């Protein structure tokens, strides 16, 4: 085929693909109102309703999908870093990261298939409507899933064949396409999820389809969720491979192995925290959009039946930040220069622990009637004010800034700046920190004295301040690091205890992801599709925190079992049986 013929064929293929979602228009009765399910529309299997089955499968699928979509993102970046720095260690580590995720891929497909089956089995009427709304997009999703498989296997198995020279760039291009396909898959699934929260492209009274698939896709909460899940996936993927590295570090038999897995653990922690630091801001955007879409939905999440869940969220995030910081502080021992930062650790620890305590302080206390009588209410006079958003926003921003400071200390322990403006640069960084912290505290105080409707707005300058400090300090440090004298980093010089911090991250992250998913889903209250299609099943209630916590724990344990198996498989792949001398060929 001629070159122009190929181009023409490609154009036709792309156009067909783009039109695919609309091709199925005729198949559905678009003008019909949304169905109104009755109790009879919710089959049970063995007396069991659909919710626990769908909840468990959906959460497992999300855990695995987050992991297998995230790993190729940072693998590609590490591979590129290897090309740019010509350091072969990056390439080996990227390949090892990808190997871990490969075994998880088939589990992702398995749980995805199970989830689809369960949805059609238990919620046929809801799925019928969703298929009517998203029409051929579902076929497009299936097509992308096939492409994801092809490019993932191609990326992994061509690693050694496309290792050097121009071929390496070809390999990077395959990785790029793999990530494009993976992210598109996630964005499509996010559209279905967010459509159920903030339906668009349908008549608000009847649910009849009035718009295109694209209108339903770009509903008000789609992009906030896209960003939130993109960042969360990176943090999550980093945390899981960090646990792999920590386990291999603890099981290492040689100093060389320890050094390798220490470096791998450090990189994983870096990825996890780098994805995690901007996550609260993406969460803030998502919640602000939820409030803008429906104040009722926002209040249900933050100030209503689900409000106590945010105390658990605070405990989980506090645990993650404490563990990540502890690991970084232990890392200062890897170099002699790190010792000079050790005196500052205690101050950072005070801020992180203090922030954590403020964050977990509830506005209303759980008290006996006698205690309520003595206290004169359910709110403590001194601690009560710490339970509202201005205090919590201030605490979170300070925790993030000081976590970044821990990172910066470790980064600087490996470098001695030689640029002539190093002193001035340090002064600017110091001034940024001081001015930023003062600004965050003042904005927090302003949050107390302004009416409720402006309280959330008061957190915007806090968020911008934190981002400014992180970005500006990273840029200044980057320039100061040019031509810097490198200090020797003794990889492998880490305590056993420090590695347990790397197990804290994935466990807390997994629990946290399931918790936030439960909150996000529950804000729809008794609606399948908010204000369009009511849930008429006997399970249309929001379960208690305890019931939800037990379900989250069950799914987390199941996921941990799968991950242990995946780790074992990836190790098994590298194990070679020693030759039996009795089977040696005769001379």
């Amino acid at each position, binding site marked *: 085929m001629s070159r122009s013929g190929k181009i023409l064929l490609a154009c036709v293929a792309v156009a067909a693909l783009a039109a695919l979602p609309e091709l199925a228009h005729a198949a559905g009765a678009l003008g019909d109102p949304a169905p109104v399910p009755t109790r009879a529309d919710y089959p049970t299997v063995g007396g069991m309703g659909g919710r626990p089955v769908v909840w468990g499968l959906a959460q497992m699928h999300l855990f695995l999908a987050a992991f297998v979509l995230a790993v190729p993102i940072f693998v590609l970046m590490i591979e590129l870093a290897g090309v740019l720095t010509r350091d072969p260690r990056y390439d080996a580590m990227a390949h090892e990261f990808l190997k871990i995720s490969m075994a998880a891929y088939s589990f992702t497909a398995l749980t995805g298939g199970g989830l689809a089956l369960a949805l059609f089995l238990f919620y046929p009427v809801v799925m019928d409507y969703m298929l009517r709304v998203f029409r051929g997009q579902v076929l497009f999703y299936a097509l992308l899933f096939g492409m994801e498989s092809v490019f993932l296997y191609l990326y992994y198995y061509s690693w050694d064949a496309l290792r050097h020279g121009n071929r390496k760039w070809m390999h990077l291009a395959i990785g790029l396409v793999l990530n494009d396909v993976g992210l598109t898959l996630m964005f499509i699934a996010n559209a279905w999820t967010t459509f159920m929260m903030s339906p668009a492209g349908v008549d608000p009274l009847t649910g009849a389809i009035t718009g295109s698939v694209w209108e339903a896709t770009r509903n008000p909460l789609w992009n906030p969720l896209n960003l939130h899940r993109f960042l969360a996936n990176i943090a999550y993927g980093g945390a899981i491979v960090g646990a792999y590295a920590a386990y291999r570090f603890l099981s290492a038999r040689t100093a060389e192995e320890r050094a390798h897995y220490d470096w791998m653990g450090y990189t994983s922690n870096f990825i996890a925290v780098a994805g995690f630091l901007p996550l609260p801001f993406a969460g803030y955007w998502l919640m602000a959009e939820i409030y803008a879409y429906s104040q009722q939905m926002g209040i249900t999440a933050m100030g209503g039946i689900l409000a106590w869940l945010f105390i658990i969220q605070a405990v989980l995030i506090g645990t993650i930040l404490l563990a990540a910081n502890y690991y970084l502080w232990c890392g200062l021992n890897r170099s002699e220069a790190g010792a000079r930062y050790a005196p500052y650790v205690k101050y950072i620890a005070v801020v992180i622990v203090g922030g954590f305590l403020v964050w977990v302080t509830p506005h209303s206390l759980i008290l006996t009637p006698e205690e309520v009588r003595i206290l004169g209410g359910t709110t403590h006079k001194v601690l009560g004010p710490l339970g509202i958003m201005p205090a919590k926003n201030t605490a979170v921003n300070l925790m993030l800034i000081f976590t970044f400071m821990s990172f910066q200390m470790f980064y600087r322990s490996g470098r001695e700046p030689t640029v002539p403006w190093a002193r001035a640069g340090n002064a600017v960084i110091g001034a940024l920190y001081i001015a930023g912290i003062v600004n965050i505290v003042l904005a927090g105080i302003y949050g107390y004295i302004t009416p409720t*409707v402006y309280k959330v707005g008061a957190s915007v300058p806090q968020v911008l301040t934190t981002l400014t400090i992180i970005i500006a300090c990273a840029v200044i440090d980057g320039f100061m690091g040019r031509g810097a004298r490198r200090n020797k980093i003794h990889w492998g010089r880490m305590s056993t205890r420090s590695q347990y911090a790397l197990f804290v991250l994935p466990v807390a992250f997994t629990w946290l992801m399931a918790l936030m998913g439960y909150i996000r889903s529950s804000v729809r209250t008794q609606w399948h599709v908010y204000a369009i299609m009511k849930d008429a099943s006997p399970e249309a209630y929001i379960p208690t925190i305890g019931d939800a916590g037990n379900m989250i*724990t069950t799914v987390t344990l199941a996921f941990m079992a799968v991950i242990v198996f995946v780790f074992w498989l990836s190790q098994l792949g590298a194990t070679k049986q020693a030759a039996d001398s009795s089977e040696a060929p005769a001379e």
Partner: protein
Amino acid sequence: MTFLKVVAFSLAMVFAFALLANILPQVQSNPPTEEAVDTGSLDQAGQIAWGERLFTGKGTCTLCHNALGRAPDLLQLDLAAEFPSRIADPRYAGAAKEAEGPAAVEAYIRESMIAPSAFVVAGFGKKGTADKISPMPKVDGPPISLTADEINAIVAFLEDRAGLEVTVPLPSAEAVAAAESAGDGADGGPAETAAAAIVKFGCGACHDLEGSGADVGPKLGGIGARLDRAALRRAILDPNAEIAKGFEPDTMPQDFAEQMRVSELDLLVDYLSNLPAAEAAR
């Protein structure tokens, strides 16, 4: 050994999080239930009480209208004092000022529910709209979907709460008048006793009540010890919500919510709550 230590450490953490979830306050949030109200027999006091229940229940008004400042606290607001300045405000775009006296207040309250952006109290508008658009949903549409009678009941409640004359008519005054002029009404009037209600709704045809000896439905002796009043109410109005072991769904009529008057439902719930355990009352 390392593997076991890591697994034990991870499990301890997971169970600590689960423990935390189980020691916090445990509240299950059920979807709002449609209250069976006999609008034909409501007097003004009953309508006001119904309005209050809707205000805190199905209407979800207190989600925002409370002391936390998301929306004006209607239970504390002196509406009589506030009202004149609101409709005199140049931003006011509603039609309530065309009415006069108490009728204007009634129109304003109703309008604020079905067209909340007609006037937005300063500081409570949707972000970026300069208080021109209210974040409040129209209560006659989803997700709240109050009926005209329910909106009227809330208006009556708020008028009464503000110490104003309640101007809202009873929901079906015409129907009541028609029923009175036709003698006892189409359905023979509400049952006065539990026994009469049992006969009227045919409960004894399936349940062993009042000596009927029927066994199509479960025995109800001592049911008051197992179910509280709310659960009994639900079992009558939504019988498929929970089916007793050994019995089939869809056997009991599903439309008692439409058939029964509130007083009759209360009679039955009282009766069942006190039904002795040994045998069905005779």
